[in-house]
């Protein structure tokens, strides 16, 4: 499965890119699984996700929890807690 992964704010800065297309292995089923798997891809990912509780996720532009299944989503985004308004 190919997923577009987007990064925002300091997650983007740590990973070093704003987005990428990722071929997700079959055993990566949930958002949490994906975070764990991404963290193994290099130092920059390990650094971005070093405290997974702080990083929020949105699947197809909806906020989700780590338990959420990736299902047939096309896009996932990772970002710090929001500071708009």
């Amino acid at each position, binding site marked *: 499965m190919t997923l577009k992964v*987007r990064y*925002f*704010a*300091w997650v*983007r800065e740590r990973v070093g890119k704003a987005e990428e297309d990722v071929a997700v292995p079959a055993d990566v089923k949930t958002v949490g699984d994906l975070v764990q798997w991404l963290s193994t891809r290099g130092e920059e990912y390990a650094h971005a996700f070093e405290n997974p509780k702080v990083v929020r996720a*949105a699947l197809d*532009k*909806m*906020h989700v929890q780590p338990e959420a299944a990736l299902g047939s989503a096309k896009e996932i*985004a990772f*970002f*710090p*807690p*929001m*500071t*708009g*308004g």
Partner: protein
Amino acid sequence: MISTVRLQSEPFDAAAESARLTQGRADAGALVTFTGLCRGDEAGVPINALTLEHYPGMAEAEIERHVAEAKARWPLLGVTVIHRYGRITPGEPIVFVGTVSSHRDAAFAAAEFLMDYLKARAPFWKQVERRDGSTWVEAKSADDRAAARWHKRTAAE
């Protein structure tokens, strides 16, 4: 009900947006507006500017969803939400929420609800630009608590 949601990088005129909400209508008894502005300091230290990053597509969807929820909860006659992104200098407006209703309670409650949600849920991130570099603003747990109080109210209903 007329609702307007806009994301833009250009400054906006909060006073004009405010006037537009009640123009030419005689059913509006109450207009509440909130304007969030860029301050010249953050935690006591002077800043040059704020830069707001956002998640295009998701930000609009999140705001529209909360405007729809506000409409379902309170008898609103009009709502405007404007949120800027990009570089914003001290004194400029960042965000505007305007709510119109026949009665003041609904207008106040809906404006506070929308602001609390924008702060805690809308995908925007503020970066502070100082003379010696840039840092990301940290989220306040007070903002999460402010947003959570609206959940509690729903559960109690």
